[in-house]
């Protein structure tokens, strides 16, 4: 049954400590809800059935964008995607993130959805979302990775029983910006790099992030490292709004004249986590930014890809996006 939300206890704390304590008490039955754009779907479809939902929207400390002493920024996890997109500092220093925000879902969803929620949303595999007993749902099979599975949107890399992909547009931008995530729970605060925040099925098949029950993502920190760099973001989706990426790409480049001095390239929707293209970065670092370099990098972009029945188009698409990004 879909579109019929069951009852649960709704708690609306005003500070992080209270929220963390309530979630700790609720344990596996607790649910931290950010903008609700993912959570409410799960509830309405009666698939995820927490008994205690902690609505984080009343916690003022979780919103806002603060400049840090090192020239970076700290973004409260509950800051809406619209607010991040329109923030002057983000636009000036980290335009890559602003570009990514602008392509998330639709304006209505961006007005309610939060940056923390966007990077922590669950897999969008339609089999998983339909509520069947796949690996990710605690079952013993993957319906998408079968000889007849409908897997056009699924992964090229990193399959490990599950073949879902990272659906977030902002996650790839944050990965390319070397961002880190601040996590709080009843025991205290930890900070993890983006590369460690997102996890694949080989590590934990039921979770897309390192967040455990009781954890609250409080902020995203972007260091000054890539401030003002040369950025490129592109998202290819069937539709130009309210759609998930078929493949997306976020690059940050430090240029010295026309030489690529340093670079980050991250692709989304090709693996369960944002896929850093370290090999391509190594190939093009120190090279002139031109068509030859773009072609060289593009040729290595999808190396190692293991396509499924319906998604091998992602190989040329990924290559082409890398080419476009490097071409500039």
């Amino acid at each position, binding site marked *: *049954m*879909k*579109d*019929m*939300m*069951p*009852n649960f206890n709704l708690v609306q704390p005003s500070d992080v400590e209270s929220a963390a304590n309530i979630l700790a008490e609720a344990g596996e039955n607790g649910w931290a809800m950010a903008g609700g754009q993912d959570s409410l779907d799960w509830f309405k479809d*009666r698939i995820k059935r927490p008994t205690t939902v902690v609505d984080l929207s009343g916690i003022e400390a979780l919103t806002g964008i603060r400049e840090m002493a090192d020239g970076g920024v700290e973004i409260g996890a509950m800051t809406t995607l619209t607010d991040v997109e329109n923030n002057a500092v983000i636009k000036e220093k980290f335009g890559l993130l602003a570009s990514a925000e602008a392509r998330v879902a*639709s304006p209505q969803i961006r007005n309610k959805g939060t940056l923390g929620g966007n990077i922590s949303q669950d897999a969008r595999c*339609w*089999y998983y979302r*339909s509520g*069947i007993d796949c690996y990710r749902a605690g079952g013993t099979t993957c*319906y998408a990775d*079968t*000889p*007849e*599975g*409908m897997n*056009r949107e699924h992964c090229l890399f990193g399959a490990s029983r599950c073949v879902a992909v990272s659906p977030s547009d902002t996650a790839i931008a944050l990965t390319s910006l070397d961002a880190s995530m601040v996590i709080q729970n009843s025991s205290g605060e930890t900070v993890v790099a983006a590369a460690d925040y997102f996890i694949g099925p080989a590590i934990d098949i039921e979770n897309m992030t390192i967040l455990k029950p009781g954890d609250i993502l409080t902020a995203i920190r972007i260091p000054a490292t890539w401030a003002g760099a040369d950025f490129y973001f*592109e998202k*290819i989706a*069937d*539709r*130009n*709004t*309210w*759609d*998930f990426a*078929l493949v997306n790409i976020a690059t940050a480049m430090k240029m010295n004249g026309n030489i690529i001095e340093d670079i980050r390239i991250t692709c989304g929707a090709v693996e369960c986590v944002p896929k850093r293209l370290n090999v391509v970065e190594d190939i093009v670092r120190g090279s002139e930014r031109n068509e030859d370099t773009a072609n060289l990098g593009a040729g290595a972009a999808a190396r190692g890809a293991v396509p499924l*029945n*319906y*998604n*091998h*188009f*992602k*190989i*040329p*698409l990924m290559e*082409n*996006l890398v*080419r*476009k990004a490097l071409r500039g």
Partner: protein
Amino acid sequence: MAEKLMGKNFTPQDVRAKVTGTGKYTEDFRVDGMCYVKMLNCPMPSANVTIVDTSEALAMDGVLGILTSDDVPPNPAPGFPILSNEPRQLGQPILAIAAETESIAAEALEKVKLTYEAQPFSLDPLQSLYPGGPDALTEGNFVKSRSESPVSHKWSARDFAVAGEENMPMGEPGMEWNVGDVDAAFTDAAYVIDESFVVASSTHQALEPRSTLSYWENGKCFIYGSSQSQSWMMPGLASMMQVPLSDIVYIAEFCGGGFGAKASPYPTMGIPAYMSKKINRPCMLRITRAEEYHIGGSRPGFQGQLKVGFDKAGKVTAIDCYIVQSNGPNNGSGDYSAAAGALALVYTPTNMRFRGMPVFTNKPYIISQRGPGQNQIACIMEPFMDRAAKQLGIDRIMIREINAPDHDVVFSNRKSTVTSSYLRDALIMGSEKFNWKEKIKLSGKRNGTKVIGIGVGQAYHSAGSNGFDGLVTIRPDGKLYIHSGVGNLGTYSYASASRIAAETLGCSWENTVIERGDSRRGLPWVLAQFGSNTTFTTTRTNFAAANAAKDKLKEIAAMDLGGTAEDYEVDNETVFLKSDPAKVMTFAQAATRAIELGGVYDGHEYPDDLHDVTKAAMAHVQGVGLVGVSKDKMPKEGSVPALATGYAMIEVDTETGKYEILEYTSTVDCGTVMHPQSLDQQIRGGGVMGMGMASTDRMVYDPQNGLCATVGLYQTKAPSILDVPSTMDVGAVDKPDPQSPAGVKGVGEPVMGCAAAAILSAIADATGTNFNRTPVDPDMIVNAMAGRPQSYKPLQVNI
């Protein structure tokens, strides 16, 4: 005709309510004592269900009752029953529970214990036709006619082996017709294309799910529904509820879209109605978005082979078309046959053979969708026309003009004729508006990785009927009341087609009231609001009713003021003596006199040739004033062709498979333009729907488990505002159809098909690839541009 109203813009009466949110759709109604009903829907494509134990559910506080297939009339295969223990499609309702709240009903459903015995299922008609392939129904996969029972119809393995993977196997068809000598014509043809194709199924995606509220009062069954039609619903609802027509009260003032899927009564309407009868409480059944995708019907997909021969001048000399239609588990619609009719009319082939084979599947039940059949085949045939034009060195517009039908066209095996045809005029007008001669020079022009594609498309639909009833009343308040039985699917044609009555009676629009949306308002029998027929059909009925009222006005004036009826004229809300306009009666005076006179004047007597629905409606208008009621007995001969053309310029990014529609123009033959603003919106709205049909509109099924991937708006991917051009140039030939008193024809259907065809034509032009299918998604373009094989087989469906 003075034409004070026809051809002018106006604001239909329900617009303000829609814009301000005060319009009441089914879910907005509340009735004292109302409870809620929720359905248990089949979680698999085909199953035999045993209801084991409902006691725990029924024991819950707030649960009021259960409805199972035992409580509703049966509807043997291939009918679609209200509830069934043998569901043959995903999401088919098995039972329903009523409770004080939806939340309780949902919880109770989870406590019902059932067993599902999964049955073999079929999602691909070709798979079902293969020897040993699964039949969707226990009884078979095919029915020859609606009066017969289903049988298992298989082709030979040799049929499949001979065809190979690229071409359609063509076993024994369910339907076949021939005109001329097709084989000889192909032998003589200068150019022949012969290829297989696929047109995907698609759901209707109405914004408003089909919720129903029902209760019983004084023996009458009240039903509030979301439907395109009004009076058309009455006999079907009476039959469904097994009560006399006069015991049905149907309320449907607003409809949030239907696109064909809400034209007639649908099975779930019976759930709250029978539940209400059983538990004696008003019952509201709210349909969810996901449920709507399962029970809301869908357009049938096609798998086919199309062979077209041209002479060196570009004339289509032969068409040989074989269509396998993917029905759901029900009778489906005649799309495949309508597609053949469209080929025969739009391209006027001198020789044609058509074979059709509708096959049951366990996909959502089939019902006509905007341009049923005609729009599907336009998506395939129009790119074929482009290929012939290029091969034969003929301009792509010119080859269409060469083949366009004239007024005297005789087409198909039925030797059908048309009421009028201005397709060629629409092509000339549209290509000039689009500046085709200049635009075509940009075809293939590259800008970095992007390339320009130019496309053109045409589509047709038979859009008019006759023989229905019209009813108007003139009341002592001096106003004209037009009783509209047609319904209001959202196009406002109910209103614009009513204006001919006001025009005929010389009544201002300010003093005209349209009675509609509730059968208690006295609504006459007219055809359903589907197939773009309302404009033609109800303009005629309203004209007939207005003339009946006019005659009575003159008779009453002659009685009271002297002379004969012929001496009088009607205008300016009065009836007056032509030779002495000072001898005059106002509408108010005439209405009062009609009531005094009674009989035929106030509706107590009426013609016997009226339909039973109209006769039942008369009870609501008798004595309210002067009553004009009449059946449309004006002559009508031939199909009423709605014809549309579309022109697109797109820019394809060869690296991403994405394209931008830079420009879109569409021109139509809709007869005389009745309501310019509404016409523009129809062309643009249909254009957007067509752009979705060509590109992203999807219906994806897992063939192994029969699960559906597309049960949300973000999954089916109807085009968004950012996927379509911000402006569209539209126009109409604006030449009258001789068989309409106002010269009008509807055109809502083909404006979608021509747009879809124009986009597909432009994609083929830009990419040089013949996809022979719709939709064409970015992944297909990426693969084509990268020189990679596609991930699907040529005749594969549900991807």
